């Protein structure tokens, strides 16, 4: 040990002299500081994989965006106005191969339509027209019926809104409006 470079002197993890170390440690001495250094360096290397995974995830969003760049769906008749009573609702699909959406008649004049999946964990929401809310029974999420915005519970994003028009006594879906606030 004495003729070694002072920088290379190894010390056991507990800091005691080698003669005081347990037998197994005396039998298999290693360069502990170097071992600790390499362990840390390898851990940093491993963390780089995590960093790369996050970056790959960001680019995955871009790929999804490029794949989904398509024109908005064309208009679609959902129901006749007289088929939905005030306070009534109807589950429909717009466009045809999409997740379920929910049409609710709030009063004589007002219809609203949203994606039926809760923005928390995609459970179907249930309209409670009498209190002006959409309720998600899975985790007690509550959305405002008129705006689709979250009022309480875990959801943080509003429900995607289906824009509507009344044409010749028909309720017509004209587009989908996703929102973050």
């Amino acid at each position, binding site marked *: 040990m004495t003729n070694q470079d002072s920088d290379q002197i190894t010390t056991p993890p507990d800091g005691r002299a080698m003669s005081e170390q347990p037998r197994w440690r005396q039998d298999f001495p290693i360069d502990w500081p170097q071992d600790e250094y390499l362990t840390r360096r390898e851990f940093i290397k491993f963390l780089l994989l*995590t960093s790369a995974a996050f*970056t790959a995830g960001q680019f995955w969003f871009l790929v999804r965006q490029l794949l989904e760049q398509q024109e908005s769906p064309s208009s679609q008749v959902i129901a006749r106005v007289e088929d939905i009573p005030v306070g009534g609702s109807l589950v429909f699909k717009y466009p045809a191969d999409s997740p379920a959406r929910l049409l609710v008649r709030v009063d004589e004049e007002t219809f609203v339509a949203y994606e039926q999946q809760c923005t928390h964990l995609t459970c179907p929401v249930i309209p409670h027209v009498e209190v002006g809310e959409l309720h998600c029974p899975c985790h007690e999420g509550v959305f405002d019926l008129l705006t689709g915005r979250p009022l309480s519970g875990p959801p943080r994003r509003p429900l995607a809104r289906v824009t509507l028009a009344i044409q010749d006594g028909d309720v017509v879906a004209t587009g989908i409006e*996703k*929102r*973050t606030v």
Partner: protein
Amino acid sequence: MKRKSRFARSQRMTIATGILFLVVVVIILQLWLFTATMNAFLGGDRAILWPAAIASLVCLGLNVGLLWYLYGLEK
């Protein structure tokens, strides 16, 4: 003949610890960026995607640079 590092081993250990701390901070930043981007993406806000991807790439580059520097210390 092997060239001796300009830093003592104990100094390299301190530098490695500092770099580890920086890398962890950058990764936490990337995690935040990822969740914010996912929220925007699911909410239909596509304007944020390119800037977020570039920012995440810069973070990855920073981490790679720090590891590169650490390897450089051992030469």
